[in-house]
């Protein structure tokens, strides 16, 4: 191993970005395993130490294997005071929020209580994570906003957690993951959408999830690289399920955000759904509109990891299909596949579209405009 003379060079020298941005996918981490204990009833401390979590899927405790970089995170993002990447607010401010001029940062905690088979434990950990977001992050830096994490497999308990947080300005969305026990349009999850609509909170669907289903649609793959591209498959299934189960007919004011699963595939999925819907409409007669219309009206997309076609004009064409008003810039800090805000868009994008892409769409969607 190579030893470094100096502890750490300064923050990575990305070209500084002048205008304010929204980062719609930041991952806060716990510095220690017991950091959640103050927010959990004592009985759960003993329970966790005696019985553990029992997830639907083995190896859920992340990261179950080395994911390209330690903790799947940038090697330059370890806080100087110790702990894993993303576990220190002051270092996040110094390395990311300040130099990148982040005016709004949406926290998406992963490794929460989601996907635990004991639904009471799942609910207790999710609620603790929500308290922890306020205490450690959003109350200390007003740029940061939290996501209400919920015990996703228990719709009723999830709805109760959302109602508990409704109106709390520390939170701007509800957070789900894409791989649950069933596709997320199915009725066991409807109480989540009902409560989110009632609370006026969009529901974000982040890549990952621990429902026990493989990451690809045809079984468990051999390589991490297949997992990285598998996220878009999961998200396509999730989105088709939401549309075809009639979630947007049932909850017409519900907005959703597809997080970290790409967006280049969206037009193709929408076209295929429309074409098939013309022939099979009678199977899902409660749909009053073409599938693509629900997608256009109800779905927003975070950008990272950006599609990166060889010919950059192809990126702009994809965005034209989806709409400049539907993309939310995201870095995924501190994860290793981080997108640098100064480098994601090619030249030739109008000032109005840049402004929408980097900041305004997020402020509008999250009710902060």
């Amino acid at each position, binding site marked *: 191993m190579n030893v*470094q*003379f100096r502890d750490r060079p300064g923050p990575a020298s990305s070209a500084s970005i002048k205008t304010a941005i929204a980062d719609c996918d930041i991952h806060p981490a716990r510095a220690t395993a017991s950091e959640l204990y103050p927010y959990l009833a004592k009985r759960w401390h003993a329970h966790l130490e005696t019985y553990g979590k029992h997830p639907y899927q083995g190896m859920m405790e992340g990261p179950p294997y080395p994911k390209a970089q330690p903790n799947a995170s940038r090697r330059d993002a370890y806080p100087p005071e110790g702990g894993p990447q993303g576990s220190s607010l002051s270092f996040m401010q110094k390395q990311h929020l300040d130099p990148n001029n982040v005016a709004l940062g949406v926290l998406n905690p992963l490794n929460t209580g989601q996907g635990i088979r004991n639904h009471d434990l799942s609910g207790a950990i999710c609620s603790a994570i929500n308290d922890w977001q306020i205490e450690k992050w959003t109350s200390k830096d007003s740029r940061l906003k939290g996501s209400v994490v919920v015990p996703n497999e228990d719709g009723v308990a999830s709805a109760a957690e959302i109602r508990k947080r409704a109106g709390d300005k520390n939170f701007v969305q509800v957070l789900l993951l894409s791989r649950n026990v069933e596709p997320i349009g199915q009725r066991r999850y409807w109480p989540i959408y009902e409560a989110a609509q009632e609370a006026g909170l969009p529901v974000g669907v982040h890549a990952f999830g621990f429902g026990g289903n493989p990451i690809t649609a045809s079984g468990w793959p051999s390589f991490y690289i297949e997992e990285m591209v598998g996220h878009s498959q999961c998200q396509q299934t999730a989105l088709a399920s939401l549309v075809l189960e009639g979630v947007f007919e049932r909850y017409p004011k519900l907005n959703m955000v597809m997080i970290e699963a790409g967006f280049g595939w969206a037009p193709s999925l929408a076209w295929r759904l429309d074409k098939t819907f013309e022939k099979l409409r009678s199977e899902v007669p409660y749909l009053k509109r073409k599938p693509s219309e629900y997608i256009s009206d109800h779905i927003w997309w975070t950008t990272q990891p950006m599609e990166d076609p060889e010919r950059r004009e192809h990126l702009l064409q994809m965005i034209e299909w989806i709409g400049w008003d539907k993309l939310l810039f995201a870095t995924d800090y501190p994860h290793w596949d981080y997108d640098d805000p100064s480098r994601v868009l090619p030249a030739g994008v109008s000032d109005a579209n840049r402004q929408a892409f980097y900041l305004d769409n997020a402020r509008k969607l999250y009710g902060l405009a």
Partner: protein
Amino acid sequence: MARHVIAPVDELPPGTRKFLTIDDRPIAVFNIKGEFFGLLNRCPHQGAALCEGPLIGLAQSSDPGEIEYTRLGEIIRCPWHGWEFDIRTGQSYCEPKRFRARAYPVNVEPGSSVMKGPYVAETIKVSVESDYVVVDL
């Protein structure tokens, strides 16, 4: 182009790397098994501090199923997106046509020659008795 004296050679033993800024440029100098290498500490892909990455080997395959792992410790892997560069040349193994890391020649010079110039000694005190690591920038 100037020659910068950056350290007495015994302060940079094998397996170490030194970060410094010369003329506003972030640089790292590596000692790999007694050989010295210099790189601009900025990844040409998205600007990360490239030289904070681990030094790994080069995995290559001439035929499917055959994998050779060679040049252990001579490939630097970016701490963000894992792009791999040859420490000797800065060549990218991911996209050699689009990207190249900036490599700088590094040599060891005796104190007697370093004292004559045209070297820039930064803040290093130079004596005739020692050898010094010198980077060309």
